[in-house]
Each structure stands twice: as C-alpha cells, then as structure tokens.
C-alpha cells in the first residue's frame, strides 16, 4: 500500500502535546518523522505518570501514542556541536516543526533565517502560544489559552463554573491545524520548489473551537458569549433530556411532523393536544413549557426503553454515553478510530487511538509506538547523516550526544 507522505522527512523538535500530535498525523501517513530530544530526560511528556490522580497504567500512553511512528535522536542543542548535527539533518529534511518559543530557538541558532539558509526548500513550522506577531510573553498551555478564547465561559448551566473541553482538547485542535498548515506548504513547495515559514498558534486555533458562537458574538449577538440553560433552548426537540438511566440527546428539527413523531415516541398526549405547541412558532415561544413536558415523559423511562421508542418512530436520538461505552463501540473499532498495537514497554498488545482521517488509497498506518529516548541517534548519524564513527565519538566527547 502506498503512503501519502512517502519520502517526506520531518524534524520534530516538539514537547508535550500540540507539536507532537501535529507530527504524529504526518507520521501516520508515512512521513519519516525524527523527534529531537534533549539528552537529559527528553520530551517532558515522557514524565507523565498520572492523569486525574490515576496511574496511567503500566505504560506511558500520554507520550507513546502521540509520538508513535517516530524515531528519536538525543541531541544537546545548547552546544554548537549539537547544532551542527541538526543543520546536517535539516539539509536532508523537508519540514522542521517546533513548539518551543521563538526566543529559545533563536538562542540555539535555529531561527527560520538560519535554517532556510541551509535548506531553502525547508518548510519551517512553529506552534507559538499567541501568534507569530504577538508581543505577549507568557507561557501557554492548553487550558490557560482556552480560558482566553471565551469558549469555556459560554459552557455549562447559568451560574455554574466555566467548562474546559477536556484534557488535551485545545492541543489536539492546535495540532491538526498545524498539520494542515504544513500540508499546504508542502503542496505549494511541490509545485514551486520553495519552502516557507508558517505558524499555527494555540490561541489562533482555539479561537476556532467555538467558531459559530464567536462569529455570532462578533456580529453583535452578545448572548452567544453567555451560558444558556438547557431548560430554555429555542427548539425543545433538539435538546438533551434525563431518563431513569443515561441522558438522551434528541436531534429533531422544529417541524410539525417531527414534533408529532417525538410525541408518539414519548406517548406524551400533552405535547400533541396542547394548542400552544401546534406550530413551530408556538413551540419556540412556549419552549420552556414544552421542555418541561418532554422531560416529565423522559424521566419515566430508562434510556434503552426510550431509544427503542425513538427508533420505532424514526426519531433521531442517542443515549449520552460514557468512556466505558465508547471503548466498546463497534463503530469506532470498525473504522480504525481505535487500534491495537504492540507495546514494547509491557510486552503485550495495547489499545490506542487510531486514524481519525480515512484515506481510501493511502490509509494511515500504525507501525510502532513512540521511541525510546535517543534510540536512533547513532544509526541516523551514520546512515542518514554520513558521519564516520570517529566523528560520532568526538561528538560524544563534546557532549553533543549522549
């Protein structure tokens, strides 16, 4: 099977989540991704041992999944000799990706100007916190940046604390945005022969996480910025409702025939007879009353019973599942959104997030989980960068490599 990114080499100088996951998307589709790590401890993501006070298990799935399909070189980039190794690698690469700060990259002599002078075809991509043209100098993590976008403040019932969209949610989004930018630049380069500089920041990406609502706010709809109660949604037929078991999401447009179908599924005579709900405008005006009637009906049933009734009447709905449900969801496994792979650390098969983008002729592949720190340093120096063994010994003596 051919690979979409066959022959593309990526220098992946990233840490934690956003940068590594961007490079993971490229690696999944066949790019040769070489992760560059500091010799002491490597990427900080290697140190994650617990999530929500739970042990992550006997293998580090935080690091190993988003760094899968990659090689690792340990290079001390604070040293001039280490920088020389990186320059030689850049000569032979197509993409340089980093989510370190631009100041830090400049202090290691890894600015765009420097690397482009070595390889004018290089696509040089950064993931800054707040943008290429930002003067803000403060650290950026997923949640602190999500906090600034306004996306958290509009979620939840009125009066409740703001809501974070989940651990890694903003980084994952920034990562795919970065991967898109890199593909655009690679496509352009394949036609023009020229590289370029690009930036996909965590802030810039996350402003799109709530795009429909932010755009509405920008157009003057100030309520789009605020928390809205589920008891006041304009269309009661498109709303979430409690049952005796799981909550259920009804997803029906505000049309007479759909209203009737929901009424039949719930056996809620009050919905069907009440003149206030006879047309769309009436249902929107008396939304709170209708929501209460629907809720009274859904509370009488378990979610399975309610779903069976919805299916019978052709009402579109879903139970609101938890993570224990989704890891068993056949649909996820069939489409390779989850995959099994061998984990060296524990010498057994483990379950991992798979391929969210399905390409019919060049599908993503899972070849191996994340590398051990520096496992490919010497081999790549010899075979790819054509160093002699004596030179490698000299680099070790200088502390450029471990």
């Amino acid at each position, binding site marked *: 099977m051919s690979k979409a990114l066959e022959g593309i080499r990526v220098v992946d100088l990233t840490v934690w989540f956003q940068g590594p996951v961007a490079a993971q998307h490229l690696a999944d589709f066949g790019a040769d991704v070489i992760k560059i790590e500091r010799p002491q401890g490597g990427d900080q993501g290697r140190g994650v041992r617990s999530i929500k006070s*739970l042990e992550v298990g006997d293998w580090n799935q935080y690091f190993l999944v988003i760094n899968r399909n990659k090689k690792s070189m340990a290079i001390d980039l604070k040293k001039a000799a280490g920088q020389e190794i990186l320059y030689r690698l850049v000569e032979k690469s197509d993409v340089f990706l980093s989510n370190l700060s631009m100041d830090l990259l400049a202090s290691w002599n890894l600015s765009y100007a420097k690397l482009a002078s070595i390889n004018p075809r290089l696509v040089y991509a950064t993931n800054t916190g707040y943008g290429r043209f930002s003067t803000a100098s*403060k650290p950026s*993590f997923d949640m602190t940046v999500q906090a600034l976008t306004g996306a958290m403040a509009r979620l939840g019932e009125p009066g*409740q604390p703001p809501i974070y969209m989940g651990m890694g949610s903003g980084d*994952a989004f920034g990562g795919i945005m970065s991967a898109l930018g890199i593909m655009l630049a690679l496509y352009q380069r394949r*036609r023009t022969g020229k590289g370029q500089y690009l930036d*996909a920041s965590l802030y810039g990406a996350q402003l799109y996480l709530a795009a429909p609502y932010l755009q509405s706010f920008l157009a003057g709809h100030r309520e789009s910025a605020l928390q809205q109660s589920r008891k006041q949604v304009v269309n009661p037929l498109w709303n979430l409702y409690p049952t005796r078991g799981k909550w259920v999401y009804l997803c029906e447009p505000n049309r007479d025939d759909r209203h009737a179908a929901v009424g039949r599924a719930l056996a809620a005579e009050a919905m069907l007879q009440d003149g206030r709900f006879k047309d769309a405008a009436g249902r929107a005006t008396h939304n709170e009353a209708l929501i209460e009637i629907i809720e009274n009906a859904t509370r009488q049933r378990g979610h399975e019973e309610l779903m069976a009734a919805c299916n019978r009447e052709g009402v579109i709905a879903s139970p609101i599942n938890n993570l224990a449900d989704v890891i068993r969801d056949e649909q996820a496994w069939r489409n390779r*959104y989850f995959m099994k792979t061998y984990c060296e650390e524990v010498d057994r098969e483990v379950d991992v997030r798979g391929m969210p*983008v399905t390409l019919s002729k060049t599908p993503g592949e899972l070849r191996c989980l994340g590398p051990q720190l520096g496992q490919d340093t010497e081999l790549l120096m010899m075979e790819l960068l054509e160093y002699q063994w004596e030179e490698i010994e000299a680099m070790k003596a200088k502390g450029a490599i471990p």
Partner: protein
Amino acid sequence: MSRALDDVIVLDLGRQFCTALSAAFLADFGARVIRLDPLPANAEPRPAGWNHEADLIHRNKESLALDFRRDQGRAVLTDLLAKVDVVVTDWQRDELAAAGLAYERVRTIRPDIVYGRLSGFGPLGPDAALPPIDELAAARTGMMPILPQPGQPPVYTGSGAMHASVMMAFGIVMALFHRLETGEGQEVDVSLFGANMYGAALDLQAFLAIGKGDRLLNPISRLDVSNPMSGSLYPSADGRWVTLTMPDTDRWWPVFSKMVGLATDDPRFDTHDKRTESHRLELIEALEQAFQRHPGAYWRQAFMDNQMSADVIEQFDYPASDPQVGANRYILELDHPSFGKVKSLGFPIFMSDSTARLERLAPCSGQHGGQVLHELLGYSAETIHQLTAAGVVA
C-alpha cells in the same frame, strides 16, 4: 502572490457549517471554490441583518445556482465534475447517488478526483448510514457526562465539528499532495464521531489504556481536582474565574506560595506529594480562600509578573478586542458593503509565502454562474442564455 492551492478547483457541496468551513480554508489559501446552490431555491426566510455566518464559511467562494435534478442541469454538472479537482460534501450517500454525485460515478468522469465526505460515524460499520449530526456523535463519544461539575447535566461543546472541519481540509490537501506525485485520486472520509474522539484526546486514551476508573466516568468537582495547581478553577473577588496549569508544582511552589499568601515552608504543603496527595483537599480549600482576596485583574497581573501558566477566564469580548488577535489576523475588521465595519473570524494559520486572502465575502446564490459556465466550461453566450431562460441556472 503565489498561494498554496492556486491550481486547485473545488466543488463545494457542504450544507453544514463545518463542511463549508473546510472548503473556506482551502479558498483562503488560494483554491478556486465553487459552491453549488441547488435550484429551485429553498424559500426559507433569512433572518434580517448581516449574515455573519455566510461571510465566514463562504468567504472567497463563487456560487453556481443549478437545477441539477433536470437533465440539462445534470449535463452541466457532469461537465463541471470533469473540471474540478476536489469535491467536498456532507450529503448522505443516497442523496449523492440520486444526484449523480456518488464517488463511483464521479471518478468515471474525473478519475483523479479527491473526494472528501463528512460522515456521521465513518465509512464502515453498522452505523455508517447515520446522519452527520455533531450532537449525535458527541453523545456517543463519552466525554459529555464528565465535562460539568457533579450533578449537572452533560455538556455539548460543539468542538467536535470544528475538529472535523480542520481534519477534512488536512485530509484533502494530503490527498492532493499524493496526487501531484502519483496522479492518483481517492476518497477522504472524516466523521464527526472520529473527530469528537480525537478532541477527547487524553481522557479517552487514558480509559483505553486503563480500562477502569471512576474519575474518568464521572464528573470531578473543582474542589476535588487531582492537582490543586493544575486544571483547577477558583473564583476571584469579583467573581471572575482563575485557572492554573502548573503540573510541576515543585518548580512553582516557592513563588506561587508567596503570591497567594501561604508560607512556602508550610509543613502541610512543602512537597509535591503533600500538595497533590496527602494534603490535596486542604490546599484546594486554602487556594479557594486565597483567590477570593483579590479581583481577576490583580491575579492576571500577578501571573504575568511571575511568568506563570495561569490566567483569568474570559468571555468572547476579550479576543474581540485583544490587540494580539488583530495583529495576527485571527479576527479581521471587514468593510461590509451593507453593514459597514464589522468583525469576523480570520485566519488561524500564518504562511509567509501564501498569505491567507480575503478577496470577497460570501457570494449571492448564482452570482458566478455566467463566469463558471463561460470561463471554466467554455459554454457559449447562447447556451448560457438558453440555460438561464429555462431556469436551469440562475
């Protein structure tokens, strides 16, 4: 100025916000995107005022209004398919087949087509035919119950659709890249289900790996957060919320403890294990008190002065007037012909040699019909006149 996708023509059949936005991203970076607006036009009343949504998701696009259900219209569509490089759609498979737009047919007209389709739950499996509704997909993904505080209803964020939007653009450009090298086209499928799962990155992977854990199945109170200094929320004196992300508490404790008025050598909190395990709840309680002593603005300045990864939670008015946002063109000020100066979401990716463009706002339905038929398909003025008179194009 050269742009990344200068040589790409896209037929945009997206109905949903997220699909149309994928095509808009392609247009921003140079693709010629032609929207197909079906005739006869839908008579739904449009809300008064600025159609801000259209000017975001259809910017830089052209519109061809076409009655493709009639034979003449279908012939136009066939001619058009021969000229486009990419199809983007979120239609159901039976609708596509009925309109002659199924992949199996399109590739007989244009063998190297890159055909991107947003699905609800992926191309395979028992639920492949479920409609692409983000709420349905989010409900299946397992995150909704654990986002709120305990006892609160599940939370739908809408972020899954936005993940899908970017993933679709990524998949399409990657397929175009492959095509440039090999001449081979292919199908790209991105589902709302898969995209929602990727947005649920860490919790979902943790549960996959561990296979158990109440703290991954039930909401965690903000007063029971695993690390009082990371992922936590505290109200300040003026009710604005403060959030902290300092997982490495050893690094920050000396300066952080002073900032919040706790003794650095307080024996309850003087190690990482005490702060995050044995005295975790006491520390949360202490911070809950401490942050209420000053308003949000005070804390923002203190975080900034100490270069801490922490901030105040804002509403949309903050990015709308943030100079950093303007400087990076993340939000643009537009000169709208009917509504004057308005603000709209801009470009999340900066490219030095392919500057994102804003050449025009959303097209009116059929605005570029003549242009598309004449320039792209080479129809004569007479043919175009006939098609227009017959109501096949408008």
